[in-house]
């Protein structure tokens, strides 16, 4: 379980405030938002690379104040994999298992899990983007962290690579039961993988809920446009003499079923047009 409460962090004029984010044990949460909204900063706060100015972070039941990254039991995968270039695939996978008697067996096990068994003796420089990302995922999973932090792991992959890694992530989450926080700017990742979504805009968590809920009832026009819920139109709702409500924009007028009146935004979903 991960719980963030009243977190505040500031650096170089950027301010992040996370009132509350709770990911249950074994849960899969997606944090989505545009570039520069603070998603990676949020992950680095959880990992312990950054310290919040105030607020509490708990992993499991342990408060993380003053706990260094190496003692938090988190694994992290960045968008650009960050494999250690001076080590081969086997050494990368076993990096976090130093001194463990079962290191070799665990490396083999993880290499099968992330489908890189045949690459174990290869230099990481010779791998494709998808292979590198799978090795990075395996490296993070090898030490069986209680929390897996994913920072846009699919963003730099081609469509086939994305599909394969998505499938892999879903399967690993089901089999390993690790709590996952997955940062992405692609709502499709959230829809396919996550049980809960938090939308981050300009350093604030502006909406949370199940992916379908966020998709169907975005909290603001920005969220609606960002997650691609549909076409967002600005207009005015007025009441007719016959009591019907009309939503009027510069280009069109629609009859609507709604109690609200005045300026507002309406969302039209292509799949609901008949």
């Amino acid at each position, binding site marked *: 379980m991960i719980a963030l409460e009243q977190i505040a962090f500031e650096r170089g004029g950027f301010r992040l405030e996370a009132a509350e984010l709770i990911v249950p044990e074994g849960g899969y949460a997606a944090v989505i938002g545009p570039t520069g909204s603070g998603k990676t900063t949020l992950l680095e706060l959880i990992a312990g690379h950054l310290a919040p100015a105030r607020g509490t972070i708990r992993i499991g039941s342990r408060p993380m104040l003053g706990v260094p990254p*190496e003692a938090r039991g988190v694994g992290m995968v960045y968008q650009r994999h960050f494999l250690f270039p*001076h080590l081969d695939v086997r050494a990368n996978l076993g990096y976090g298992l130093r001194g463990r008697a079962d290191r070799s067996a665990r490396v083999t096990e993880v290499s099968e899990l992330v489908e890189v068994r045949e690459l174990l003796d290869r230099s990481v420089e010779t791998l494709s983007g998808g292979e590198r990302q799978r090795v990075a995922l395996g490296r993070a999973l090898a*030490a069986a962290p209680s929390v897996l932090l994913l920072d846009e792991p699919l963003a730099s992959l081609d469509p086939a690579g994305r599909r394969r890694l998505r499938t892999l992530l879903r399967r690993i989450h089901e089999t390993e039961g690790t709590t996952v926080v997955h940062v992405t700017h692609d709502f499709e990742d959230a829809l396919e993988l996550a049980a809960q979504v938090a939308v981050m805009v300009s350093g604030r968590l502006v909406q949370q809920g199940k992916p379908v809920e966020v998709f169907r009832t975005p909290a603001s026009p920005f969220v609606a446009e960002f997650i691609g819920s549909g076409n967002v139109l600005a207009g005015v709702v007025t009441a007719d003499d016959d009591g019907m409500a009309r939503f009027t924009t510069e280009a069109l007028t629609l009859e609507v079923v709604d109690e609200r009146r005045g300026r507002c935004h309406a969302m039209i979903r292509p799949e609901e047009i008949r």
Partner: protein
Amino acid sequence: MAASSKLSRRGRERVSILDDSKPASADPPTATAKRRTRADGGTPRIFALLAAGLALFIIGPLLKLLLLSPWSGLGDVLGDGELHAAILVTLVSASTATLLAAGLGIPLAFLLARRDFRGRPLVEGMIQIPVLIPHPVAGIALLAFLGRDTVVGGALAAIGIEVINHAVGLVVAMAFVATPIFVSAAQSAFQSIDPRLERVARTLGDTPWSAFRRITLPLARRGLAAGALVTWARAVSEFGAIVVVAYHPRVASVLIYDRLTTDGLAGAVPAASLLVLVALVVVGGLAFLNRRTG
């Protein structure tokens, strides 16, 4: 809000015919083409002329020095005990100074590369001052700080460490003028490594020290080695600070100067030529490191 009106969708299907024939440019470029591509940036011809002039300006005097050297009397040079001793003192002092520069310079360079602390630009500027001032001035500063009559010099003398006109003074003078070179090189080497590699290592169980030892240091090793080589070469070639701090025991540069003032050019050339050869070895070492890195 739900829109209840019916909208119709109009549009025409557009069909794109894709040409799957292989484009001519997909052929891999030949070696000749690659060379041509490198030259195709459009370098002004005057640059080549000026570059040739500069190369001649640098190489000319050194080549002339090597040609002046009486290589037929190489046996005499190699059998010159005084020169042997001076070269040995130079090599040992320069190597010790380089180790000192690396031992103290690596932590400072890493801090400068990774930490954004108050006063960092000041520290970065101050550390480069020994390179910017005339080297006799550096020697005078060291004399003023480490002379027998000073607090530090007196304290060192009390525990049996003599600096002025001793081998320790040589190492100190060499380290003083050469360490900034190492710090700059090491800082660049550390800055070229993405700190997120260290962060990943931390989440995999490393302490800051073990992440530095297992990730940063191996990845920076070529930059550090190149920096150490240039630092060592700078220490070998030091003269100005050494003549002020520790004229004796004589290092090669001081011996060459002595011979120039007493025996003229003919007396100084053989030993000077040997130092040029040492520099060529350093250049060869740097080229090797660059090739390995590249």
